[in-house]
């Protein structure tokens, strides 16, 4: 480490700069089939200890939050225990609050999102679950509010999630009542700072009222049916026989901290798991 040495650039420094710039440009132009294994190799070797560190840190944070929640739950139970008849109802309510997992009714793996400090962080996220936990490529990734994306690459202990913000993301969507179908994809020119989705290919004669919840349709076999994608908020454009709607997403990838990776993608309807009142049993 030549600290304190002459810092004026020499010809050698310029060569190093040009070499690094050239390598960077080569890296940018690499095809996906070369780029992904390279990135995966780095994550499994050099970056592995740092990702483990970040995972442990996320789990520690979660553990502290769970401790606080358990303290609240314990106090709640203490109060409920005073009236034994109400204990069962209280218990059911607390179980309902535990989260989306039990309601899904299919296998899933919880994972922490390991955010990175770059402008493109929201497009692809690294999560703390991999093939050892049973995660597979194209596995749907959901948050309690709805769809986040799907797994695009899997390593032993981590995976890469292509979120709905990614320009390549597409999903078959439908209105909550099943009356309208279309293709959901990211909206390229939304208002500043707002990532939006759009529902394309809706026949002109079919009108979708604003506020309609859009769910995955299950067509295509990758995503299960009934996962919330977002809410229709406006008409983006009309062209020919079709109309495109703007959709406010259910999940913001930039702020997602914990997700669930669905392990089974056989035909299943998850509408009841994501129903607004499903987390609050009477």
């Amino acid at each position: 480490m030549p600290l304190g040495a002459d810092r004026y650039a020499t010809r050698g420094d310029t060569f190093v700069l040009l070499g690094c710039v050239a390598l960077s440009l080569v890296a940018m132009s690499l095809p996906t089939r070369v780029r992904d294994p390279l990135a995966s190799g780095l994550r499994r070797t050099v970056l592995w200890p740092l990702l483990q560190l970040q995972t442990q840190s996320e789990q520690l944070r979660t553990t502290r939050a769970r401790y606080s929640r358990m303290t609240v739950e314990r106090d709640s139970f203490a109060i409920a225990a005073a009236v034994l008849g109400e204990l069962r109802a209280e218990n059911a309510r607390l179980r309902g609050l535990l989260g989306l997992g039990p309601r899904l009714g299919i296998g899933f793996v919880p994972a922490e999102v390991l955010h990175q400090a770059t402008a493109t962080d929201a497009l692809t996220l690294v999560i703390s679950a991999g093939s050892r936990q049973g995660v597979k490529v194209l596995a749907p990734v959901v948050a309690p509010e709805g769809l986040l994306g799907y797994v695009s690459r899997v390593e032993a202990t981590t995976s890469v999630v292509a979120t709905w913000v990614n320009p390549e993301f597409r999903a078959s969507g439908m209105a909550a009542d099943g009356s309208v179908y279309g293709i959901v994809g990211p909206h390229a020119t939304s208002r500043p700072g707002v990532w939006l989705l759009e529902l394309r290919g809706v026949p002109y004669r079919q009108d979708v009222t604003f506020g309609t919840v859009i769910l995955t349709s299950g067509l295509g076999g990758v995503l299960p049916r009934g996962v919330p994608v977002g809410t229709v908020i406006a008409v983006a454009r009309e062209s020919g026989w079709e109309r495109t709607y703007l959709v406010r997403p259910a999940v913001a990838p930039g702020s997602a901290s914990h997700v669930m990776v669905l392990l089974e993608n056989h035909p299943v309807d998850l509408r009841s798991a994501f129903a607004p009142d499903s987390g609050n049993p009477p």
Partner: protein
Amino acid sequence: MRAGQLVRAWAAPVVLVVLQFTVRNRLGANRIAPDFLLLALLVYTTRARPGAGAAAGFLVGVLRDALTPASFGAGALAHTLVGYLSSRAKTVFFAENLLVNGGLFFTATWVRNLIVALASGKLVGPQLVWELLIWSPLEALTTAVAGVLILALFRQWLSIRLGAR
């Protein structure tokens, strides 16, 4: 270089790398939290030769790209240029002034984000404007503040002219 000097030279960058993967996620908003990894790079490059700064920037960029594959290569390019230019900048500015260092951290963070956003081609139109005028300046500001605090904390160690004859 003696072992003690080596430890003192690398203490701040190592601490910053650990902070990046442990503390940063607890600071709240991910988009505006300080980038400790970039700070670690800058702490090194502002005391190294431009060539070493560029090489270090390239390595940090490639590793970072592995964590955000959507912009693979763009991070390497951005960190290479920032590493080289920050090293050159020290020949122009007064190196041990905290405010100047803060300004350098701010500028380097914003320029890094600018290059990543443009080179990746993933952000367009209003998204790009929003990124460069709102999110990046905020992140640059928090990074600069964190950098100044780190420099103040490690001032004695970092101001030592290691390797000087």
